[in-house]
């Protein structure tokens, strides 16, 4: 099947924690497993690599069962067509960058001279010709990351796995490396699965996001659809939206017993309502006129957020509001302060919670 190079259902029991993640990846596709720490992303990656056996489900790559507990099917790590970029790279400290990259081809039966030629070619592609003879400890973080990528790709794997590929880098290096990594992942003909807790990395690198929380897939889709229509608080926080679930009846969505939000979209049944913190206005007194949603809230916290001030408010619903420092000063926002919260219906986005 050409539309699913990798077909997997990863079920791993670890004591009380159970991972159950279905995953299908097409050739050339880059899928990001995105989730908070402890969501089971790394376990999923280790199961794909054969470093952790499945409890149930299956890993099928190129129509070959790599792991299927039900039938006892099992291909050990060293015989899987995979390449792994580990979070801290795990470059062999006793080998030069060149020999690190040549290690995989050598294990795949390539003669030494040819393996070195392949390695040299790959180091060239990641722009590290000059560093070929350096030991890993003589490389910068960004260089080590590129050597790790070259080492994983040098065996032409059907499945490329990356565990938090940019997490170990400082902010500046991260930006450059992210762009370069995107170029290499786009060029990779096989399937790619990357694991990250950083939404920016996921959005920049992946064609499709699979969001995992507590061992389950809570949302799946391409970047724009996930960011526009978050389905869990975690995703909403990632993309910086206020998110509420409630019951819709035309233009009203009842998000709490005391509060029904008026929305621009028209829908019925279980629904989500999302809006940006910048769309939230704060007032010292109840605002008059205009089709707004208004309610009374209490300031719970105030923090700098970029050029603005992010205010966390309690009330019928908890909400984050971004206001200018001037407005914050004028309102004299301090924890415990009572303010009126207003959100225009046109600033909200409502969508069905089912399907």
């Amino acid at each position, binding site marked *: 099947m050409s539309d699913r190079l990798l077909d997997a259902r990863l079920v791993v029991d670890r004591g009380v924690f159970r991972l159950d993640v279905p995953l299908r990846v097409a050739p050339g596709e880059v899928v990001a497993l995105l989730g908070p720490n402890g969501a089971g992303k790394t376990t999923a990656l280790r199961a794909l690599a054969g470093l952790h056996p499945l409890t149930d489900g299956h890993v099928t790559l190129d129509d070959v069962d790599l792991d299927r507990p039900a039938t006892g099917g099992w291909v050990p790590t*060293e*015989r899987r067509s995979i*390449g792994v970029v580990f979070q801290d790279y795990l470059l062999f400290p006793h080998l030069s960058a060149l020999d690190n990259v040549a290690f995989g081809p050598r*294990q795949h039966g390539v003669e030494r001279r040819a393996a070195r030629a392949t390695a040299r070619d790959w180091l060239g592609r990641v722009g590290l010709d000059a560093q070929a003879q350096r030991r890993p400890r003589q490389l910068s973080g960004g260089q080590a990351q590129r050597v790790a990528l070259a080492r994983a790709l040098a065996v032409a794997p059907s499945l490329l796995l990356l565990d938090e590929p940019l997490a170990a880098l400082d902010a500046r290096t991260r930006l450059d490396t992210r762009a370069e990594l995107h170029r290499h992942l786009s060029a990779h003909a096989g399937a790619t699965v990357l694991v990250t807790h950083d939404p920016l990395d996921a959005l920049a690198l992946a064609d499709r996001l699979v969001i995992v929380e507590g061992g389950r897939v809570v949302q799946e889709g391409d970047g724009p659809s996930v960011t526009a229509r978050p389905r869990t608080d975690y995703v909403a926080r990632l993309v910086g939206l206020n998110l509420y679930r409630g019951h819709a009846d035309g233009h009203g969505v009842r998000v709490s017993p005391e509060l029904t939000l008026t929305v621009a979209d028209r829908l019925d049944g279980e629904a989500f309502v999302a809006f940006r913190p910048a769309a939230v206005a704060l007032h010292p007194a109840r605002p008059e006129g205009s089709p707004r949603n208004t309610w009374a809230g209490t300031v719970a916290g105030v923090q700098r957020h970029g050029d603005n001030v992010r205010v966390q408010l309690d009330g019928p619903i908890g909400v984050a509001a971004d206001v200018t420092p001037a407005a914050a000063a004028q309102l004299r926002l301090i924890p415990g302060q009572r303010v009126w919260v207003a959100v225009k219906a046109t600033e909200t986005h409502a969508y069905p919670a089912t399907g």
Partner: protein
Amino acid sequence: MPAALLIPAGLGLLFIVLPLAGLLIRAPWTTLPQRLTEPGALTALRLSVQTATLATALCLLLGVPLAWVLARVEFPGRRLVRALVTVPLVLPPVVGGVALLLVFGRRGLLGGWLDSTFGVTLPFTTTGVVLAEAFVAMPFLVIAVEGALRAADHRFEEAAATLGASRWTTFTHVTLPLVAPGLAAGAVLCWARALGEFGATITFAGNYPGRTQTMPLAVYLALETDLESAIVLSLVLLVVSVGILVALRDRWMTTA
């Protein structure tokens, strides 16, 4: 600083240094070159170096896999096995020699069979010296290598597997290079212990010049007949010991 601590501390240091100083003071410096090149001394030295090296090789061959199993394989009774491996460390060497005789002696558990099947006799031979030294020195190697294996990040081995390396290739191309410093330290320590072995050797292999008489045995024998010769041989062993200490100073004296 309280004198109650300083005085015993000073005495303790003196207690260690004084005998060594004695060795240097009483050494027959003028006749030293001549005595060192005496056939007896040279033969004992050569035999000592050869047997200690062979014993170390034997310990590497058997001890490294043993250390790997202890460090990497979970099995019931692992603590017991580890305890057994360290027994020669605390066992009086002479007891080790007796135990070796009971197993490998002509009428021993395996010795009789080895003798009748292969015509191999171990006690009172140079091979016997190697066995006795290996028996006593092996724990030093196993403990050092196991410690190094535990300290090494086993995820490098996972990385090797993802690159297609078999378990064996991973062991030889990744694991061993990673623990090379620990391995070298263990081997040197093992060699030093084998070189100084006395009790198990004299019990199991006897004291035949040229065949089983190693340096420590020669020192002991010379003590009764020729004191100066004993001092010279002792000096050689002292120099070797200090040399090893210097070679390994980075590993064991880094706190200084």
